[in-house]
């Protein structure tokens, strides 16, 4: 496997040096770029504190409050920060890759619905044709120190 990869890399480098960029997408730089931007230009690394963890867990309902999870989150933020080093003045922000297409509009007629059995077939708990959900939003129990090295604890 490694030999195959090495072989491919050599081939690509060869084609690049030949100036045969037609064979590859024009957006690939002809000479490999090792670093996107100068690391000294970046904003200081964001540190996650207790409050932020609680807020994020409540908003996302994702369990990540252990050392490993937090490190991963901080790395992800650091990675996203790279974009700040790029000069985007005068460039219109892109909303989606579909932005040059127009939204298709459907006629106003009933074409779906009336499939109650299907729709409810995944529900674990139902009651006389209603889905059943726990009441309101259950508040998350605050925990002592989330920056410890323990495995994530079950909350909900």
């Amino acid at each position, binding site marked *: 496997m490694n030999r195959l990869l090495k072989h491919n890399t050599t081939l690509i480098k060869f084609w690049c040096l030949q100036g045969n960029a037609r064979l590859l997408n024009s957006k690939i730089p002809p000479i490999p770029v090792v670093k996107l931007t100068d690391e000294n230009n970046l904003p200081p690394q964001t540190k996650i504190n207790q409050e932020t963890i609680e807020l994020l867990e409540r908003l996302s309902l994702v369990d990540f409050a252990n050392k490993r999870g937090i490190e991963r989150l901080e790395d992800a933020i650091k990675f996203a920060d790279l974009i700040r080093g790029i000069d985007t003045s005068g460039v219109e922000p892109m909303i989606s890759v579909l932005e040059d297409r127009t939204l298709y509009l*459907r006629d*106003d007629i009933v074409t779906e619905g009336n499939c109650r059995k299907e729709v409810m077939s995944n529900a674990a708990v139902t009651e006389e044709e209603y889905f*059943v959900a726990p*009441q309101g939003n259950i508040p998350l129990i605050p925990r002592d120190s989330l920056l410890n090295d323990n495995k994530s604890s079950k909350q909900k």
Partner: protein
Amino acid sequence: MHLPLRLPHYSLVGVASVPLMSHWKAVVGLEVHAQITSTSKLFSGAGTEFGAPVNTNVSLFDAAIPGTLPVLNRRCVEAGVLTALALSCRVNPVSVFDRKHYFYADLPAGYQITQHRLPLAQEGELEFHVFIPDVHHKPYIKKSCIKQLQLEQDSGKLLHDEEACRSLVDLSRAGIPLMELVFEPDLEDGEEAAALVKELILILQCLGTCSCKMEEGALRVDANVSVHREGEPLGVRSEVKNIGSIRAVAHAVKYEIDRQVRTLESGGVVVNETRAWDTDSRQTVPMRDKEEKQDYRYMPEPNLPPLRVLLNGQHAIPDIKKDCVNVDCLRRKLPELPRETREKLINQYGISAESAVILVNENNLLKHFYGIMGEKKSRDPKLSTNILIMELLTILNKNKLSLETSPFSSYSLGEVVDLLQSKKVNLVTARKLLQEIVSGNPQSPSEMVEKYGWAQITDSSEIEDVCTAVIEQNPRLVEQFCAGKTKVFNSLVGKVAKITENRANMALVVKVLRDKLSKIQNS
């Protein structure tokens, strides 16, 4: 069930009119969610009829089953554009859908598709009359600006089962198309808010984009209220939800303003919270579930390209399969708006502004008015409006009937107007005729006048005779009148009226009686 129609002026209970102490100013901004009248939902092909069996109008997309995608309904875009044009908004040629994330059992996907950043239309305005007889001296015109109009999905319905600590979820309403109208905070009290909602309902019903049935949940109004002392910066605002009728808008806003003033005056602090209007206890109470400040993490909806509408003579872009919504075309299709109808009534028929407001507020009255005036141009419009507004509504009210279900036609009403105008009957008889018409008497008014002998007595000799007879029969009253008790005059008039069975021309009667009595006095 349509509630019995009441006289618009006298049944509107003016909100307890203790004015705010002069140094307090209130700021009210409304958010209105109007359900678009359409056959299918906003992003799916499921049906939208009210009262469908539980969880039947649910497609796989509405239940957020993975692997489904939204497809926008053209009728909803047209309705949104029509409403935007009627409210003088600027329609954006390109608008974008966003996701608003929050977790709740009635939102299966965990997000709502709405238009937060670039809505369908922005910067409009709505002009309306504010007038409650007990509260204001005369009607005044107020204008409220519209910040934006956007298309969004509705969420499902939750039934709370307190005992078993659970909620039952019905997704038939999930995905139903809504227009959200965000108004600027430029209102100052509950009556202005109620008047704005009333005018908005008239416009939406006229356009046919919303049924505006607040009891069915087709129109929901939330009010943002804050108070501050004059000259100081704006205070903390609170949001009031669960308002179920136009009058409730006025009451809820008034209560909230008073509550905030009371809190601040007693040294307390107003908290930024969401409160619910409780109709039974007539106060706003904090809503339990929405405690924390929400972070909605708005993000562009990745599954929907931008929505483009054609403006200013643009032609369709060739590469799309179906036609775009053409705004100019829709602008030409706009029907006559309530404001224009009122102006036409005032300019063309010369009736007063208040009467015009009442007629336009009640569509059935307006139809009758057009029927009466359309049949014979010579009929007096002011008299017609009087008959409709003052007399007809009173009688309907007394009989506990409603304008919609009553079987009479403008034709019979027009005849009553003719008889009154030509002085063939007096007002009392006219009321009797109206009572007969309302009760369903199939005879025409002229026939009834003939049959029951209700024609007005205008023959002066007949009136003279009756007056003389009354004076002779009541010597004591005459003595009292000559002695100075002028109030007995009314009882003498009453006696004449009774003898003539209320058919005499009362103005003539009064004149003749006065003449006779003054002759006796002077002799």
